[in-house]
């Protein structure tokens, strides 16, 4: 910072700017001006001052070069700065984060695991990763991916993928097979799309019986006939019976919440809980419920530490008794649910007959559910065909 006194301060400044000296923060100060100029231009400054008849007064030094001069001779600081620069360079030459974008059907984990096999994983040396090679390998490994781009930006790797259009399910129409019964039952309806129907409505079939045969006789009756084998297909609806039994004791235990709660804070490292402060639960029984869970992160980088807060709701078990009617209603409900679980999307429940047996401490139920269900099941007819071939 320099103070210039004299009447020709403007001439002085013009002369300096003409000679390429950079001036800034010029302020008028009484008769003269105060301005800032680079340290290295002191010679030109004094020369110009002499020419224009101005007096120069150095008010002080500032800026980066003079600050550096202050820190001269402090070797540890210099070493620290150097170490920081080297550390930054080293850390930035590793891969830290890998992201996968654009995948819908191919799980992200599969792609990441495969990348790991190829050497692309967090903490891998950046120079050792060849994006083109990985692109090629991923395309070979995953047939569902049609386009891959591996982009290394800084310490982040972004794998962008595009998936192929989903292939339609291929129905094998060539390999000969029979349609057999999957369950015992009485046939209600049979529709054969291909093949020869072997049963008719009202027939009783056992599990494994052939419903639609793969053998088709070609040719009119009385003429020369020959047999061809096709992939039989069709739908067979049958009435089936399902036997169900269940029992329910009259006495049962019920959770009664006392309304008392206790909270617990847990710090977990790498998914393992480190429970330092634990509330005493003594003999009490309680349901644990996680109130919130938060993963800590440094900016975008996830730290494997998370905070959890749990709440315990304390309850006591109390002995209760239900009446016979209550038990019956509950059993009927469970039977219906069980039946529905057995049902395929095509099936319907015709009716459920139940028969209760009452005991002193429990109620037993025997039920018979009548269902209408599709019972066809494809069965490759290799063996049957061989047998038929053998008899010919």
């Amino acid at each position, binding site marked *: 910072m320099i103070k210039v006194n004299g009447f020709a*301060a*403007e001439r002085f*400044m*013009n002369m*300096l*700017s*003409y000679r*390429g000296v*950079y*001036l*800034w*923060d*010029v*302020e*008028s100060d009484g008769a003269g*001006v105060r*301005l800032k100029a680079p340290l290295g231009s002191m010679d030109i400054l004094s020369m110009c001052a002499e020419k224009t008849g101005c007096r120069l007064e150095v008010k002080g030094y500032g800026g980066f070069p003079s600050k550096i001069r202050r820190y001269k001779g402090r070797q540890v600081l210099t070493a620290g700065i150097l170490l920081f620069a080297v550390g930054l360079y080293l850390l930035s030459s590793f891969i830290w984060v890998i992201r996968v974008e654009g995948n819908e059907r191919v799980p992200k984990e599969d792609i990441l695991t495969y990348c790991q096999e190829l050497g692309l994983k967090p903490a891998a040396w950046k120079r050792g990763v060849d994006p083109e090679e990985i692109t090629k390998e991923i395309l070979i490994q995953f047939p569902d991916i049609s386009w891959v781009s591996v982009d290394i930006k800084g310490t982040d790797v972004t794998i962008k993928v595009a998936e192929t259009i989903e292939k339609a399910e291929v129905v094998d129409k060539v390999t000969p097979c029979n349609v057999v019964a999957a369950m015992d039952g009485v046939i209600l309806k049979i529709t054969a799309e291909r093949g020869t129907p072997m049963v008719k409505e009202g027939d009783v079939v056992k599990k494994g019986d052939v419903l639609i045969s793969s053998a088709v006789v070609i040719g009119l009756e009385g003429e020369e006939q020959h047999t061809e084998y096709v992939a039989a297909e069709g739908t067979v609806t049958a009435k089936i019976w399902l036997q169900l039994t269940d029992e329910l004791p009259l006495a049962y235990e019920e959770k009664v919440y006392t309304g008392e709660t206790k909270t617990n804070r847990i710090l977990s490292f790498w998914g393992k809980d480190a429970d330092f402060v634990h509330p005493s639960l003594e003999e009490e029984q309680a349901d644990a419920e996680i109130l919130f869970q938060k993963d800590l992160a440094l900016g975008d980088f996830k730290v494997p530490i998370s905070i959890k807060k749990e709440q315990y709701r304390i309850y006591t078990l109390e002995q209760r008794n239900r009446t016979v009617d209550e038990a019956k209603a509950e059993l009927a409900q469970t039977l219906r649910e069980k039946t529905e679980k057995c049902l395929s999307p095509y099936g319907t429940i015709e009716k459920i007959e139940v028969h209760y047996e009452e005991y002193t401490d429990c109620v037993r139920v025997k039920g018979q559910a009548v269902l209408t269900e599709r019972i066809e099941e494809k069965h490759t007819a290799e063996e049957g065909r061989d047998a038929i071939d053998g008899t010919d």
Partner: protein
Amino acid sequence: MKKMDIRRGVSDALDLPKEIMLDLPLISLTGREEITVENHKGILTYGEESIRVGTKAGILCIRGQDLGLKQLTAEVLVITGKLVALEFLT
């Protein structure tokens, strides 16, 4: 001035920037707190309330309050303060 007229004609015809062809000043204002003059020909007078800058287009008189020169090089000149008026004197 004949030479100048030819240059003006050329820059008009070819749509070339006049500040380069005719060496005219390019003056930009940021609100009323900063004025940048490129292609100036030096400071004539300097004060807190008025600054006169020589340009090819004439003397530019900048009036305002608390004026200060933020930057001064051979090509660019930046003045800060509360601007009131800009005037060409010749």
